[in-house]
């Protein structure tokens, strides 16, 4: 009886404490793990890799700081990939909150490349190689309006420059000049990109999403509505693996470093579920 009590009624604070230790220790002593790259991430990688010279990549940062641990590494990896291949990049956010995260990612990645650049041609120059469009009111508004004209909707960029004066925006007019849109989101936004931008204008969309919402995006991957899918920290780690292997980009792999913490957290949950079920079966048998 006592065993059943212990097994089925463990105080939730004990569970929290054990989980806390399981997550904190690997983060304090990080050791990046290698992962096998799965097809959805591979598709995403090659979808970006194959963007033609005359087209741009739009990266939509649409996650709050809360989901940054999963999605930030994706943003960094995609920007590194694009800048290494000299793909033109437009960055935007459909909400205000992610703007700081987008700016942070751009600033860091551009600084990485420019610190290693020897010439102006090697450098990543604002207005020539990338533009930070920032935010405007109304996510659906943005999706529909950019199909007609990006500079009409984003009249000024994040820094206050008139977008129609920027060299890059003279080439990239609307979705016809965009090779892929990578939507990094902790919510349904990738689906809205498919609904509004892809259905109406034929825009190709790739999605980077949190692990908890992954299951609802698989149907879109299977039908080809998503050109690729990155899921959670594992997906980010796989993309980091791909850019290191294919493009020799050596940088800090935040997602890969966090995988051990994820591993132990999952193990703790599995152990507690098993303990709970053992207690449940003992109780059932006694009845």
């Amino acid at each position, binding site marked *: 009886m006592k065993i059943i009590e212990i097994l089925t009624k*463990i105080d*939730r604070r004990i*569970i*929290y404490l054990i*989980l*806390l230790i399981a*997550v904190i220790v690997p983060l304090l002593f990080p050791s990046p*793990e*290698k*992962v*096998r790259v*799965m*097809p959805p991430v591979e598709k995403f990688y090659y979808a970006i890799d194959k963007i033609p010279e005359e087209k741009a990549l739009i990266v939509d940062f649409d996650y*709050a*700081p*809360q*989901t*940054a641990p999963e999605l930030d590494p994706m943003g960094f990896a995609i920007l590194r990939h694009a800048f290494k291949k000299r793909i033109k990049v437009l960055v935007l956010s459909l909400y205000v909150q992610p703007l*700081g995260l987008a700016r942070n990612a751009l600033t860091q990645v551009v600084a990485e490349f420019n610190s290693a650049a020897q010439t102006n041609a090697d450098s990543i120059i604002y207005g020539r190689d990338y533009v930070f469009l920032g935010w405007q*009111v*109304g996510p*659906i*508004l943005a999706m*529909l*309006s950019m199909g*007609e004209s990006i500079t009409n*909707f984003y009249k000024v960029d994040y820094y206050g420059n008139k977008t129609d004066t920027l060299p890059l925006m003279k080439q990239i007019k609307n979705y016809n000049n965009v090779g892929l849109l990578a939507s990094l989101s902790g919510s349904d936004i990738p689906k809205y990109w498919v609904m509004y931008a892809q259905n*109406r204008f034929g825009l190709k969309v790739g999605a980077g999403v949190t*692990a908890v919402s*992954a*299951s*609802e995006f*698989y*149907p879109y*991957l*299977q039908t080809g509505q998503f050109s690729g899918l990155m899921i*959670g920290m*594992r997906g980010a780690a796989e993309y980091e693996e791909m850019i290191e292997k294919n493009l020799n980009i050596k940088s800090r792999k935040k997602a890969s470093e966090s*995988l051990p913490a*994820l*591993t132990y*957290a*999952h*193990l*703790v*949950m*599995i152990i*507690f*579920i098993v*303990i*709970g*079920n053992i207690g*449940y*079966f003992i109780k059932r048998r006694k009845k």
Partner: protein
Amino acid sequence: MKRTIPLFLVFIFGIMGIIPFIIPNPIVQGTDEFVRNNLLKILAAFALILGLGSLLKVHMDKIRRRRQNWGYSWVLIISFIITSIIGLFGGVAGTGILPTTIGSFSFDVWTIYFNVEVPLGSTMFALLAFFMASAAYRAFRARSTEATLLLASAFIVMLGVLPLGERISPHLPSFAQWIMEVPNVAGQRGILLGVALGALATALKIILGIERSWLGGGGE
């Protein structure tokens, strides 16, 4: 009249939402753009003012009547006023008319955002891991065949996502991937279709005036 005008407006704007999808003509698209780019933005701004007014009224009333925990209402109102002044006059990155730095200490809106809102939001989100653990422990029992199947799939997918899963078996990640791509997608598609059709039907009902409970007080 009180109910007819809103019903009429909903019908017109509902049809205006569908028509531009099928008619690409610039007259129709231009009208659609005007409604979306202008009217809706103004509406959203006014609704925000109403919401903020309500928020302040609730808390000031709590202070006035000394209701339970009224002290926290002061915290809210003072924080609201300070952040509003800093944001409105100090500018987003300290570029406004109000200076937002004292020496090397900066208190512009971005600083407040990164040092207050981001950690608080992250803390709340971090609770999820713990709540998930306690909810899983409390509720995930192999009570029936379906529940057992669900538990087994959950274990496979949880382990398959991790590098540890590859060490247990090199086929585990692929099997986990198969579970996500085949049975999961089948179930998701069923729910998605139902939800999409339900949403379509609800939207049609509202546009055609069959569903009127959003007007308040019932379906008459």
